[in-house]
């Protein structure tokens, strides 16, 4: 690590012009990046990490402006470079990979041409040479059948393939610096794992320095050597991955780690600790530490006087922290979960909602596409059996397209079952669309949705939204609402004054809490929550997860929690069902699911989860090939086409038997459970001894 620095950012100040005036987004940022080094920038949304990337690229848009400082790249100051010189650097010496690969590729141009453009612009390569380069690069990012891929349009590729194209496009000119801005956000966890491994591998070969920007601490651990933690435009702490995740010194870094559900944490013995308060708007800048307003260790008169300089932590060269009290804080310990099966679930209470042999088939709206071949009917759910007991949390987990959202829709009556059914408190509702359900049934089951921006009607006030639910679900009179609304808001820890506000004046977490209050209006027996925290920042997510858990316990409601996030599921679920292609691959008490024997798909999922702990090192099981499309559903085991533990033709031809290795635990696999147990290593770390 003696190389000269590739990138040297000194006192970078960036402002954005808004209607409220100029807002200082980066008040003065310093950091270095050496050749071949990978630096991760982490922080919650709005902390300015993407602004750093766009400043280096000098692409801040019309509102953004670099107000001061220098960005030295290979000795030249990018801030003062003219357009022509900038063009020569962009794409050639500094390249970028973006968050949404589909949107980053031109939809009306073949990906081959988009790749070929780079050598053609920068090296004056002719088409044949550029094509050869593009083909070679596609091989490097491990896209099979490169010739054919060259001729495809972006929409004809999967998300993982698109991101590989973008990475190929960035690396084709051999840049000295590669900037990756949330490159795996929005990808499924198994795809994410494959992309991260690819980046790790390409790093070895290309010797490009990498600036890796992510909100996901786990993915940073996988790729980077060093990490910088940003808060409100300032680098509050940076150091090696081991230093930051092993011995975080800044209260904000600690806060982030404490509020993050990881595979080992459980609501019972390792509760999430949300960070107090919320991020202040960017135009408010106080003297002293930017985190002081939310910090538990703040010392008035000391932390809030002058800007906090970054200082090197004693005995840890390269570990800088911008906190005056860093040396005074006690040593931080990672919060870990209990050992598996430490507490077996209470004896199963009677189920309040059961799903039996549920099948949902979507007939195409028209038999044929607007142009071309007939559309197949889509089997979104196939013979699903589940049950959720009173007061318990049943988590349904799986990747996109596994049928978990369809299941939520059938439960709530937005869709009806094609076959089989759903019994809610003894009443068969699987075939009842929501309009046909009685008021009592509607009251019994309510939903919490995924997107904070779409869950509340922007035209209505919070009070109206909750009041309307109270009127319809509780039959309250219009003049008898105010008190009830305030009470519900109190349950979700919001002040009553918020009732008069419209959603655009609320933060994402607040909107989600209002949505929970609305769902509680009828005092439901079952709450179906479809990815309720996946759009929230980790600290907000922690608060909402805790709120849900608490409300559920206090009200004795059953929570059906649908999620793609195994860590959150591990944290709050009592029972878990892992879904794949519309079927339940594995189901059982949470401790059983997260310990061997695993269904091979569960095993692959668990191994793919990025964990923000450098000590957590499990061998990843990479899934090959695409998820089968709806019209080529496998006859045998749905997972057979991608299963790393496939035993033979039996997997392709015969549906797997359901095995019951323990009470309430079932695995749909041809491999005997004992055999699985023998083959598999635990993927979730056991609790440290002597806890």
């Amino acid at each position, binding site marked *: 690590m003696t190389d000269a620095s590739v990138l040297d950012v000194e006192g970078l100040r960036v402002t954005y012009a808004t209607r409220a005036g100029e807002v200082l987004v980066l008040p003065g940022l310093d950091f270095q990046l050496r050749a071949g080094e990978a630096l991760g920038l982490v922080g919650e949304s709005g902390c300015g990490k993407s602004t750093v990337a766009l400043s280096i690229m000098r*692409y801040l848009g019309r509102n953004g402006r670099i107000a001061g400082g220098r960005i030295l790249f290979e000795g030249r100051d990018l801030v003062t470079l003219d357009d022509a010189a900038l063009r020569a650097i962009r794409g050639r010496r500094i390249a970028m990979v*973006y968050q949404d690969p589909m949107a*980053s590729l*031109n939809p*009306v141009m073949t990906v081959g041409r988009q790749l070929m453009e780079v050598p053609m612009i*920068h090296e004056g390569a002719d088409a044949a040479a550029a094509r050869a380069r593009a083909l070679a690069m596609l091989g490097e990012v491990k896209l099979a059948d490169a010739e054919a891929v060259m001729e495809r*349009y972006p929409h004809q590729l999967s998300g993982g393939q698109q991101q590989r194209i973008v990475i190929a*496009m960035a690396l084709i000119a051999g840049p000295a610096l590669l900037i990756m801005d949330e490159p795996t956000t929005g990808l499924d966890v198994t795809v994410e794992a494959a992309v991260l491994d690819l980046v790790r591998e390409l790093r070895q070969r290309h010797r490009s320095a990498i600036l890796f920007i992510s909100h996901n601490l786990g993915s940073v651990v996988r790729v980077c050597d060093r990490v910088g933690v940003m808060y409100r435009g300032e680098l509050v702490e940076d150091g090696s991955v081991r230093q930051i995740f092993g011995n975080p010194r800044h209260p904000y870094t600690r806060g982030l780690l404490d509020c993050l559900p990881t595979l080992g944490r459980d609501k019972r013995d390792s509760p999430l600790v949300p960070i107090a308060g919320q991020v202040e708007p960017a135009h408010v800048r106080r003297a002293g530490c930017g985190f002081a307003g939310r910090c538990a260790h703040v010392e008035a008169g000391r932390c809030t006087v002058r800007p906090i300089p970054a200082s090197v932590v004693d005995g840890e060269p390269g570990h800088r922290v911008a906190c005056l009290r860093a040396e005074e804080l006690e040593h931080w310990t990672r919060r870990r979960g209990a050992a598996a099966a430490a507490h077996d679930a209470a004896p199963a209470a009677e189920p309040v909602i059961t799903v039996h042999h549920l099948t949902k088939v979507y007939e195409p709206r028209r038999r044929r596409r*607007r142009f071309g071949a007939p559309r197949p009917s889509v089997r979104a759910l196939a013979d699903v059996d589940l049950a959720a007991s009173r007061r318990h949390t049943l988590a349904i987990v799986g990747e996109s397209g596994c049928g978990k959202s369809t299941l939520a829709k059938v439960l709530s009556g937005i869709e009806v079952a094609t076959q089989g059914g759903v019994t809610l408190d003894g009443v068969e509702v699987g075939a009842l669309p929501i309009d046909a359900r009685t008021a009592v049934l509607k009251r019994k089951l309510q939903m919490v949705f995924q997107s904070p921006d779409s869950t509340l009607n922007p035209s209505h006030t919070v009070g109206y939204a909750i009041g309307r639910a109270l009127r319809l679900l509780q039959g309250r009179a219009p003049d008898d609402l105010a008190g009830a609304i305030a009470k519900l808001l109190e349950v979700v820890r919001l002040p009553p004054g918020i009732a008069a506000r419209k959603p655009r004046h609320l933060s994402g977490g607040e909107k989600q809490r209002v949505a929970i209050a609305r769902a509680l209006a009828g005092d439901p027996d079952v709450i179906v929550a479809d990815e309720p925290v996946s759009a929230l920042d980790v600290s907000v997510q922690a608060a909402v997860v805790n709120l849900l858990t608490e409300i559920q316990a206090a009200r004795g409601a059953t929570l059906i929690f649908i999620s793609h996030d195994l860590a959150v599921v591990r944290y709050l679920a009592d029972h878990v069902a892992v879904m794949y292609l519309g079927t339940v691959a594995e189901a059982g008490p949470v401790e059983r699911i997260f310990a061997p024997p695993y269904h091979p798909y569960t095993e692959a999922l668990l191994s793919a989860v990025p964990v923000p702990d450098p000590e957590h090192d499990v061998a990843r099981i990479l899934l090959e090939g695409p998820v089968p499309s709806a019209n080529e559903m496998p006859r045998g085991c749905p997972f057979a086409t991608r299963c790393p533990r496939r035993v033979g033709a039996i997997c392709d031809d015969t549906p797997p038997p359901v095995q019951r290795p323990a009470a309430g635990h079932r695995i749909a696999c041809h491999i005997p459970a004992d055999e699985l147990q023998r083959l598999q290593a635990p993927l979730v770390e056991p609790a440290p001894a002597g806890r």
Partner: protein
Amino acid sequence: MARFLTKHLLFLLLTLLVVSLLVFTLNEFTPGAVARKILGAYATQEQVDHLTKQMGLDRPVLVRYVDYVRAAATGDLGYSTRFKLPVKDVLFKHLANTALLAAIAFACIVPLSMLLGITAGMREASRLDRAILMFSTVVASIPEFALGVFLASVFVVWLGWLPGTATLMAGGGWSVASQFVLPVAVIVLFDAGYVVSMIRASMVEVMQRPYIRTAVLKGMPFRRVIVRHALRNAMLTPITVIMLQINYLVAGVVVVETVFAYPGFGRMMLEATLFKDIALIEAGALVAVFLAVLTNILGDLAYIVLDPRIRV
């Protein structure tokens, strides 16, 4: 592709039938008016009734409609009471004149509005963008007759450079070519104003897309980003609108034709309606609808050609 075409052609046929029936029935609201129009105000009621009977106008609507469709299918569109000629002859003569005007105007509108729309939209809120936006908004706001009056008062009355009418007959020392200048100018200004704002809006949206950022950050010169990455995407939405302009240019320019006394389709329709020349109205309406649906199909086809995400 074959499916796409048959489906749309069927819809075209259906629309033609529905509209012709509507127009046919509409004419029923003024019984006897046709004969009255032909015979003039001083004819007696007996004479009017007699002619009505003679022309077969006293039979039920549906019967006459079926007769009409049968005759139309063989190419007989009836007789124009206004021009005292077979409808076919009148119709196609005027239609040809209008087609010529429309073709010239269309050939100006498309490149002009693409140039202005793309230029304005590629740098939103720049001074050039504001100027083009204001210009196109204002021009599109001036009714065609007012534009005609404004242009004529400058180039005809004040400067005397151009003729004030376009009768397509050389006379008064003005060539036929010079007669086209003002009508085309009016149509182009009025219509391009609208098309420019469509293209601009689409371009502004495209320029905010991440793939434009990708292209810029590849180190591509701005001009090349526009031509190679923005242009085709920016034309996706407006292409349908552009094709629909053909419809307007043929059937909607009655005002311009009236201003400049241009012997075109629109003015023919105006005269036909004022004289209750039912056969001509009916035939003209059918032509107009035919064009409308046809341009719709053309628009869809152009979209398919531009967007690889839709494949036939």
